[in-house]
């Protein structure tokens, strides 16, 4: 099992979200058109991550759903928990994000197929509304991404199969 001298990794699944503080690192794997958005307060060393599938909860046909599934509910939920449980103020938050790729090349450009792009736009709009700056992002393209965020340094590590690893 994992070595205790290494940072424990908290994994966030599809349509899920979570919050970490050091020494924990937060990870989500295999982002395609989904978007991984991180809200963090570097001085307070706390970070929340959501693995978003869709832009808008108005499209939900369920009464009850995972908050992390939609951009709007995921970000609201992160803000709420960061505020209530970690005493983080919205104006001290910064954001990073990755994902929103188009995994298959479609000849038609209908909306279902532009879902990655729409997810990215939704996150940008909502963060703008809350005046949270997006410090760095790696979005679009056509490759899958696994991301790790370290709340201690604010580094977002992005791994892909064809283009290796980058830190933003």
């Amino acid at each position: 099992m994992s070595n205790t001298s290494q940072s424990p990794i908290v994994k966030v699944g599809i349509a899920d979200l979570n919050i970490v503080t050091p020494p924990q690192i937060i990870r989500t794997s295999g982002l395609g058109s989904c978007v991984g958005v991180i809200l963090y307060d570097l001085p307070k060393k706390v970070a929340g991550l959501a693995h978003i599938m869709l832009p808008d909860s108005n499209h939900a046909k369920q009464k009850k759903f995972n908050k992390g599934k939609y951009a709007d509910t995921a970000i609201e939920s992160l803000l709420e928990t960061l505020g209530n449980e970690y005493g983080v103020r919205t104006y001290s938050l910064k954001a990073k994000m990755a994902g929103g790729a188009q995994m298959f090349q479609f000849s038609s450009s209908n909306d279902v197929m532009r879902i990655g792009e729409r997810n990215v736009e939704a996150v940008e709009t909502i963060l703008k509304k809350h005046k949270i700056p997006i410090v760095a992002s790696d979005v679009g393209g056509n490759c899958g991404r696994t991301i790790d965020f370290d709340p201690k340094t604010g580094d977002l590590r992005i791994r892909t199969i064809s283009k290796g690893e980058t830190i933003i």
Partner: protein
Amino acid sequence: MKEQYSQIQLDALREIGNIGAGNAATSMSKLINKKVDMTVPKVEIVAFDEAVEILGGPEKLVVAIMFQIQGEAPGTVYLFFSIDEADSLVQQMTMSDDMKLFDEQENINEIAFSALQEAGNILAGSYLTALSDFTNINMQPSIPHLSIDMAGALLSVGLIEISTITDYAIVIDTKINDMDTTNGINSQFFLLPAVESVSKIFNAIGINEYE
């Protein structure tokens, strides 16, 4: 909420996987001129993350050919291979031992890619034709969409399609494989029907009533 299905309904979904993959195995056998076998289908109703785990986890490198199901029962069909298996299939189809999806410099070989897409077309076509004939519901595959990347990134495209309605995927998982143990081709079919398609299918075969 997790969908509840009766044993009879789950058996029916398994039978659908059986019929589809059986027909696809026959097509594959003609394609590579070899005997092709299939496993007993597994039907699983799983959370999205668990669906990705069936493929070996979110970061597993896979070759995926995806088809949207057009017609009365929408959904998504995936065919998954490893790169070696896809290479082996292309080599046997084209009868050239050095045909590979990627050359030494990792450049794409267009001929191998289009051969693989054509194989996908034939296999998914025969899979859906069998389903369509059995249920009497019109189901047609879209053109094939081929991509090689992380399993999570590729499967989520089909999961997003159903995600406004449910948090669970009905995965009808069948493998077909040739009997070659060294250069074997294992192909995994994933059928992700939309929730409304499942009740249409049950209606069509007269088992919509719960036990």
